[in-house]
């Protein structure tokens, strides 16, 4: 069965999330910090009347160490040229994820699960792998991203 995914780049690797949960793609912008939030929460974004928490998923996935985001990043907010925020909705919960670049929307075969172990990524967030032109695309579980804490 083919499913539509939004494919994006993060630290040079391809990832995908289901397209039906994607609401919009925005250029990266600073969000409203929330002291005492989880370390991977960049903050809150007010967009078209909806408040989205914005997650640094590279950190959530364990690809980078906690960086200058969240309440400890007092003076660190600068430009993050090229990065994007994908706004998603999972079970009526809106949230955004920061990605390096959105690559495309693509219909992909149902992800292969349990065969390949994700390298360098916390496996609890990975639903499986899809392949296109011999390129591996790690399919993420939106529900897990939302309830990572």
């Amino acid at each position: 069965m083919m499913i539509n995914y939004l494919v994006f780049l993060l630290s040079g690797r391809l990832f995908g999330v289901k397209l039906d949960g994607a609401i919009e793609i925005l250029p990266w912008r600073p969000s409203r910090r929330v002291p005492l939030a989880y370390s991977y929460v960049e903050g809150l974004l007010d967009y078209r009347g909806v408040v989205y928490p914005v997650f640094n998923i590279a950190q959530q996935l364990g690809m980078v160490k906690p960086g200058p985001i969240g309440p400890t990043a007092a003076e660190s907010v600068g430009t993050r040229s090229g990065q994007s925020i994908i706004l998603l909705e999972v079970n009526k919960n809106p949230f955004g994820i920061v990605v390096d670049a959105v690559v495309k929307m693509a219909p992909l075969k149902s992800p292969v699960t349990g065969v390949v172990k994700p390298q360098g990524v916390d496996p609890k967030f990975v639903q499986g792998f899809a392949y296109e032109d011999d390129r591996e695309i790690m399919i993420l579980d939106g529900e897990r991203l939302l309830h990572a804490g």
Partner: protein
Amino acid sequence: MAEGTRYLILSLQGEGYAIPISRLLEITVPRDIQKDKGLSEVFEGKCEFRGRFVPVLSLKKIFNLSGNKGTALLMVQNAKGMMGLLVDEVTEIFDTTQKPAPMPAGVLNPGTHCYGGILRHRDSLVLLLNEDGLLP
């Protein structure tokens, strides 16, 4: 016409927070804050207010924010009594009929109760403090 709620808007590192005016007793300058070894380390100390000693908290310390302790002291009533809150500055009174939006899922540990919601104010988001949940 719907009756509004009045909030005091305060600032920490340039970002806005709100507290209901109904919980505010006084705005003053921080002075004569005495250290008290009997208080938990989250308190800056205590100060005399209306004939009683009241514990004083630094909001920035609670929120792990850097910088000085604050230049304004809010005397606030919470469920357990009175307390002083050190903040960077007080900016204005905000009268609104908005119902605070809840904090979205996935942001805070369920054990964190320091916010009462989110308000929109002058094109930005203001975090509503829950004065009863500030202490860990």
